[in-house]
């Protein structure tokens, strides 16, 4: 993986690494991607894709109003302004 691609990934993932961590992680990622390449040796022609290990039925629950947990407990853990959570500027 070249530096440009690594930079793109850091930007996409909103991660910042110092020089030491960056060198270590970039090296590890090279190693892991090399390991993942093994999958190319497997002939999967015509094989279906398993997104889950078991068959998951589409089930719907009753469309009814229910109270989600203790919202006040969640609110006490964040900074609020007029009941809204304060976040960064857009």
């Amino acid at each position, binding site marked *: *993986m070249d530096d440009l*691609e*690594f930079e793109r*990934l*850091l930007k*996409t*993932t*909103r*991660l*910042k*690494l110092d020089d030491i*961590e960056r060198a*270590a*992680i970039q090296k*590890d*990622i090279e*190693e*892991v*991607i090399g*390991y*993942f390449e*093994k*999958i*190319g040796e*497997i002939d*999967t022609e015509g*094989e*279906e*894709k*398993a*997104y*889950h*290990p*078991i068959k*998951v*039925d*589409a*089930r719907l*629950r*009753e469309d009814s109003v229910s109270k*989600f*947990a*203790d*919202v*006040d*407990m*969640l609110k006490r*853990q*964040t*900074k609020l302004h007029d009941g809204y*959570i*304060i*976040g*960064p*500027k*857009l």
Partner: protein
Amino acid sequence: MKSYIKEFLEVEKPKDYYGSLVAEIEEKNREQHFITTLNSNIASEDKGRLPFTVKANICVKGFETTAGSKMLKGYLPPFDATVVERMRSSGNFSFLGETNMDEFGFGTFGLNTEIPARNAFNSNYVAGGSSAGAAVATAMLKYHIAIAESTGGSISTPAALNGVVGFTPTYGTVSRYGLIDYANSLDKIGVIARSAADARIGFDAIKGRDAYDTTCSIEKIGNSGKKKLFIIKELMDKAEKPVSSSFEKLLDRLGERYEIEEIESGIIEKAIAPYYIIAMAEASTNLAKYNGYKYGMQYGETNKRYNNFFTEARGDFGSEAKRRIILGTFIRSESVRDRYYAKATQVRSMVIKEMQKILKEGFIISPALPIFTPKIEDAVKLTPTQNYAMDVFTVPPNFGGFPHITFPYDYYDGMPLGAQLVTEHANDYALFDFVSGWEESFDYRFKYNLGEL
């Protein structure tokens, strides 16, 4: 059948039993670091119930739940996970605390967190991961049951390394509502206990459909006993001494009751790379939501611009988490998505079909790990792919959502060795019966018995 749970529930406890237990745990936890959040009020809440713990990625209302990450420091869930609610409402269990783990479940040895748990038999050795604290707590507390979670081996590995029983159910039998996700198509909540009978009691308490988890769809769980044990040659070739030699002795003993057959299977051995591809792809999307202001760690510098804020706030992820976020995001990139992610889902299909064919005829048995328990100082030197190779036995059943159980079968140099038994989807009860049979002729050893009556 040995059941510590039944034994505990049937006898009268001393007046300040729970207060003394909390004090004992606080003292031992200073060395072993198995509990991250302790319910010191259990004495006032308890009505003679058995203490249970949950892995720190399972939400408990009002108790700090961090999933082993600084990113969730201070997070007090406003609700109980379904498994917690079911344990409480069963009438037999009281919440004791949350157990240590690798950050978000990212690890084989329990070392990827700020202060790792230590092995219950010897604190110089790894506890195993990622449900490290759950297994150590079970090995240390005589009367207790742990609710843990496995994505690719996070129950089997620590249970084996701490000499206890680790049960991972069929994917879709236990609700994941309230679990802090690692990889949604692979995560399974299970049980760690001191005997197979106790693991079954725990499973019965938490299983069953849940309107809040659509993947929790399996209701009927069977008990189809098998007469045959299969050994997969390509996997066994990876086992090193003394694991391989001890395991041979186990097979000799089991050979008196079961027919044992060694078979070859090229595809099962190849499960590790596609497993990690899917796990990392799913993990990287799950970890996108940690942003430093909605819940958990509060970054606070809201005067910063949008992108700068998130980049600074997400600096508290550990190195392994950062590595998996970057790799998972790379795997999902449009240019390589088919080459890695799509192909991995096809390989998963092949592994499931192959294992289904084998498991119809019998159980698959293996050691839980290919190597003897490593010392912490040695485990930290392993590269990522050397770490992943440790999951050679635990990944196939986890990848395919097959139920499996780990149990102690020998001791070497004072440390336990664990074997792993796998069966068909929704045949979970057969595992408990097998291990209960084993326990009739083999005594498990425990170094500690905190809370002994």
